[in-house]
């Protein structure tokens, strides 16, 4: 497991990248901007998470059930450990007297929508992150080219000043680039972290379905 502080920082970066969305100068992120080794999978599949009752209808109605909505809002966010979220879901369903299967399906629909949306937002953020890194790399390259064209042994004060300015820019930009690059593996892991969370919670709901009762 990664340390909590580091995890929080990664989440913050991914979140910040995600929030700096519409209106960004770079426009819509493209698939080519995907900087991760992981295969880009923009959306999750319901069928890869769930083999219970068809959740199509629940997907439109889960928000109308206040208790389900409150539960989903509590257990979906990653700040709640999976074990705690699991226990909450089990407690919630144990108290359901009628239509436990229907309720479990509603919860699944709610979790799927919430976590798939969050994951999508993070993916777009990572794409913007990738696009910015490409842009930064281009700028570093431009500075380097300009520096190469300036004689290092010059006695011209203006040229020397320009060289010093470019060298400072280069150092600074390279540092930002490297720092971001180091963070990339952890940032790139976030979509999978969400996918794992959704799968784990969906499995809990499936187990509760199989237990029957509550009807």
């Amino acid at each position, binding site marked *: 497991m990664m340390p909590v502080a580091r995890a929080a920082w990664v989440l913050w970066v991914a979140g910040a990248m995600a929030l700096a969305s519409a209106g960004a100068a770079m426009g819509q992120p493209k698939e080519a901007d995907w900087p991760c080794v992981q295969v880009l999978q923009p959306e999750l599949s319901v069928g890869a998470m769930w083999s219970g009752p068809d959740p199509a209808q629940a997907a439109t109605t889960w928000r109308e059930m206040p208790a389900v909505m409150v539960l989903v809002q509590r257990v979906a966010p990653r700040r709640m450990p999976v074990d705690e979220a699991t226990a909450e879901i089990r407690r919630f369903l144990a108290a359901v007297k009628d239509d436990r299967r229907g309720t479990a399906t509603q919860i699944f629909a709610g979790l799927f929508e919430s976590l798939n949306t969050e994951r999508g937002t993070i993916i777009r953020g990572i794409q913007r992150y990738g696009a910015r890194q490409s842009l930064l790399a281009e700028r570093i390259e431009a500075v380097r080219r300009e520096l190469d064209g300036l004689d290092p042994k010059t006695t011209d004060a203006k040229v020397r000043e320009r060289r010093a300015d470019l060298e400072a820019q280069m150092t600074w930009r390279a540092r930002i680039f490297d720092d971001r690059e180091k963070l990339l593996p952890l940032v790139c892991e976030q979509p999978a972290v969400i996918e794992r969370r959704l799968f784990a919670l969906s499995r809990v709901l499936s187990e509760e379905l199989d*237990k*029957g009762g509550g009807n």
Partner: protein
Amino acid sequence: MSVVAKVALATALSLTSVSASASTAYVSNEKSNTISVVDLDRLEVIQTVRVGGRPRGVTLSKDKKLLYICTSDANHVEVLDLASLKVVRTLPSGPDPELFVLSPDGRRLYVANENNNMVTVLDVERGAMEAEIPVGVEPEGMGVSPDGHWLVNTSETTSMAHFIDTKTLAVSGSVLVDSRPRFAEFTPDGKQVWVSAEIGGTVSVIDVATRKVVHKITFEIPGVRKPAIQPVGVRITADGKTAFVALGPANRVAVVDTATYRVESYLLVGQRVWQLDFTPDQKLLVSTNGASNDISVIDVGKRKVVKSITVGELPWGVAIR
């Protein structure tokens, strides 16, 4: 009786009904560098054994007393004694061994070396390499016919199944299949070999005598995007009637009628389901689920997942005795 007591009793009964086999599963955990020993009677991990770097393919010796392990990063095969659970021997394998198959007489291991495009033939008793056979790029899947005559190797990048005559140790023919073939499994009568293609999303059924693809099985799961359906491990029941196909990130195992090639059901197991193995009595099938770090135990008769059990990180291969 209270509902809770009834549920507890029902669970206890269902556990008893599947426990007759009393088998043990050995699961390689690619990232943890361990083998999880799973009691399929109690449905829990009873021991974890540390082995060499990046263990992937695993298979049992003919007498079932030893487990051969492709420790890919250690560039050799390790031999785990199952009585003491100690690595008692290492065998040369060529670089980066990923998957292998034992000859039916138990004397040879045929090893796929992912990095140097070779199949290594290993004499198990002497612990020596007999031959290296050049095949396609990125060899992976390995299947051997029940009579031991034909070895089929799949190459991921070349997208071919190579037929190797084990008498001459030379490739005698190759069959083009779909993109990134991962696994080759012979039917028990030796007449067909089933080859899964991870990117192509299909299983090609090849007639061994004519070397022709006689059928291509495709998969469609409601609510699952097509690119997520990535066939990998394949196992066919001893009576030859039913095939099970692990579908990678679709998180499902397909159950296929071998007579009609029809997919009868898709069992939801764990994330990125990779390899499969039966218990010796064929009552249970175990799948390794790489991304959810667990294995799923499937009741073959009922076609139902009995339980998922957490193992190490990135479970890859499984062998059961």
